[in-house]
């Protein structure tokens, strides 16, 4: 079938302002949108720039706005979006060139919530693993799936309003550690995310959950964090 892509273009070295470029080409309905972008770059216009690596939805490089919704180009098939496809950079982060945005503010927010395991207690005397029940492990399973693609955070109206909001992705990682019963810094993290730039900015728009390519129930995870902040108790 023939598909037409309308792609956001901006090159700060020559353009004053962004514009859209339209490309028409043959595609299979089972092609990934990423495959089509690669062909445009490879055969029609080498200057088109975007990030990609794994090509199967696990590295988080190619979060884009496709027909107005945040998705991974490599996890979206032509048949999912039809033959007229508009491709734009994700919103709320500065465009550097074409479909590439500045990810630094996103990673800065991630780093604020102490995104690492903290446990200063002595290790088991036999040097082996700390024990954790299968149920305790299941408690935070969903939020370990995050690939930091930013689909969620850049779909959130609160983040668009101000990028000092930590955003759903950072909160998902906070959840991953706060609900891990081996970790000892839940209180400290709760403090951080309970400040003005954290939980309170979430107005349950639900965009994040819809946007997540890993199907993490993000709104629910944030809800669980809000409960902790209200009750002061983990469960």
């Amino acid at each position, binding site marked *: 079938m023939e598909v037409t892509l309308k792609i956001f273009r901006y*090159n*700060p*070295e*020559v353009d004053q302002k962004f514009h859209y470029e339209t490309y028409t080409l043959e595609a299979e309905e*089972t092609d*990934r949108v990423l495959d089509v972008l*690669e*062909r445009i*770059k*490879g*055969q029609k*216009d*080498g*200057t088109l*720039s*975007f990030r*990609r*690596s*794994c*090509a*199967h*939805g*696990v*590295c*988080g*490089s190619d979060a884009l706005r496709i027909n107005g919704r945040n998705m991974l180009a490599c*996890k979206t*098939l032509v048949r999912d979006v039809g033959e007229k496809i508009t491709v734009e950079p994700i919103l709320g982060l500065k465009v*550097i*060139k*074409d479909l*590439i945005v500045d*990810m630094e503010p996103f*990673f800065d927010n991630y*780093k604020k919530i102490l*995104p*690492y*395991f*903290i*446990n200063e207690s002595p290790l088991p005397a036999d*040097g*082996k*693993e*700390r*024990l*954790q*029940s*299968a149920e305790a*492990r299941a408690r*935070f*399973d969903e939020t*370990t*799936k995050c*690939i*930091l693609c930013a689909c969620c955070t850049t779909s959130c109206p609160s983040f668009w309003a101000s990028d000092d909001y930590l955003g759903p992705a950072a909160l998902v990682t906070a959840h991953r*550690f706060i609900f*891990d019963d*081996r*970790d000892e810094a839940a209180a400290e993290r709760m403090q951080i995310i309970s400040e003005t730039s954290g939980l309170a900015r979430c107005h349950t728009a639900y965009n994040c959950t819809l946007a997540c390519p890993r*199907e993490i129930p993000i709104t629910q995870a944030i809800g669980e964090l809000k409960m902790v902040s209200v009750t002061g108790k983990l469960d």
Partner: protein
Amino acid sequence: MENLHQFDVIVIGAGGAGLMAGLYASRTAKTAVISKLYPSRSHTGAAQGGIAAALGNIEKDTPEWHCYDTVKGSDYLGDQDAIEFMTNEAPQIVYELEHMGLPFDRTPEGKIAQRPFGGHTNNESGRPVRRACHAADRTGHMILQTLYQQCIKNKVNFFDEFQVVDFLMVDGKAAGVVAVELATGQLHTFHAKAVIFATGGHGRIWEITSNAYALTGDGIALALRRGIPAQDMEFFQFHPTGIYKLGILITEGVRGEGGVLINGKGERFMPKYAKTVKDLASRDVVSRSMYLEIRDGRGINGQNYVYLDVRAETVNKYAAIDGRTNPDGTPYTVTGEEILKKLPDIIDFCRTYLGVDPITQPMPVQPTAHYAMGGIPTNVYGEVLLDENKTVVPGLFAAGECACVSVHGANRLGCNSLLDIVVFGKHAGQRAAEYANGADFAALPTAPEQPARAALEVFYKGDGAEKVFDLANEMKHEMFANMGVFRIEEGMKHALAKIRELKERIKHIKVSDSGKIFNMELINAWELNNLLELAEVTTVSALARQESRGGHAREDFPKRDDANWLKHTLAYKKDGKVELKYKTVAITKYQPKERVY
């Protein structure tokens, strides 16, 4: 000089190997990790099935068994001293990952959960053993996240989205690297006492591949250009179960959980080829068996794929036939729900890309290019070795998939790569820091960035008659057709001629993007040049080796030939030509014998 940085240790690459090296080196030396991708985008994150270690959490297992299985899996080309080193360190390093917070799945007692994997056996019974430590089917993702998080905690310096395009050597010693800052196009020189390559694999040489776009073999290509050899490049692993046409990996964990391969006649065919471990034979064996089934017309509908079936009724039927039991002796059975819980990503890939639901339908699969056994020769401390006498190159280290220790020999066992990257990443990091603390900076050459600039500028000078996209496709197609699961002299010669033709044609490329900022067109051209370099070295090494061993299977020399070929290949690039030398294999405990699964 503008953009000059100085560090004791520079690590190139931020996958599992690079992060582990960075973490350890930065404890005692001023260290930076440079990566063309954001660390969390590295392909370690794609690893699914698990990391091998004889923890014995579910049933009896020992590091000796793990060692023997790895030697056998390597088709006796692995260095046994190095393998023993790795399998002995395995349990402790897995515990260390757990201590760093890695969320492994758990047994009912709360220990790290383990599953069977191809080629890993109980050496007494010969049957599959539960040795693969896993976190659902995203073990690599968890390793990558955990190590990156620990690096943040320990304030490791990162240069993200910096692409290393030259490696500096002065008087035979490592002196640093030159990198393009992708966001600005500027060149940066990193002056260092020690350089660690951790740039990952090069599976993008082949058409059907499980490898990311970024896996273009930059590290090995850069080393080759400075006179460092590439070892055992003819050994490249084709994983049996890639999604048909797409190459996306379906982990061996599917067969570990009881999934079986089925041909076009509806038969489970693996028992014909590996009567004891059947579908869990080592990867080279399974890929060849699939190829033979397909060649003899027993693909699905006569096409070039077979089915991988993990539907509960299929698993239960064959588990009963095989007499498979749970650790408590009861018969092994599964439900669709349990499969979904253990393999959520695999199910998701099939639903997304194929519209196939593995809970109710079989998955179409074909062998996919997967893993480089070959790479930059090193010892167990990550020190790069220049020649057959194992002369150490001062200040130069390598670890992970771009390195060849060699613990995988002619064929890697599943779950041994994640192990390799953390064990040898750690040792390379430690040893590089020790080295740097006792060494001075080598003087930099004048205008150190000049060769890098020249290497990039050539891509503006062509007449524009060729395109990167087309040349890359021709290379991948040729390599998959003639340098794939089975090889024959004629085909390999054809491939070599094609690669040499492409190496000429790439001179006609003219990059159309004249900008500095994220000029990915220029970078892709440079990467294609690396892939062609490695494709050539791979093919020349393969043509010379007149035997079949592990991942190198020749129709014209179908037998392993220990009398003549029990040796490692070292390939050098000299004056544009590939030169081969050979190095002995370390054999300590296990004398080579025929491999039967």
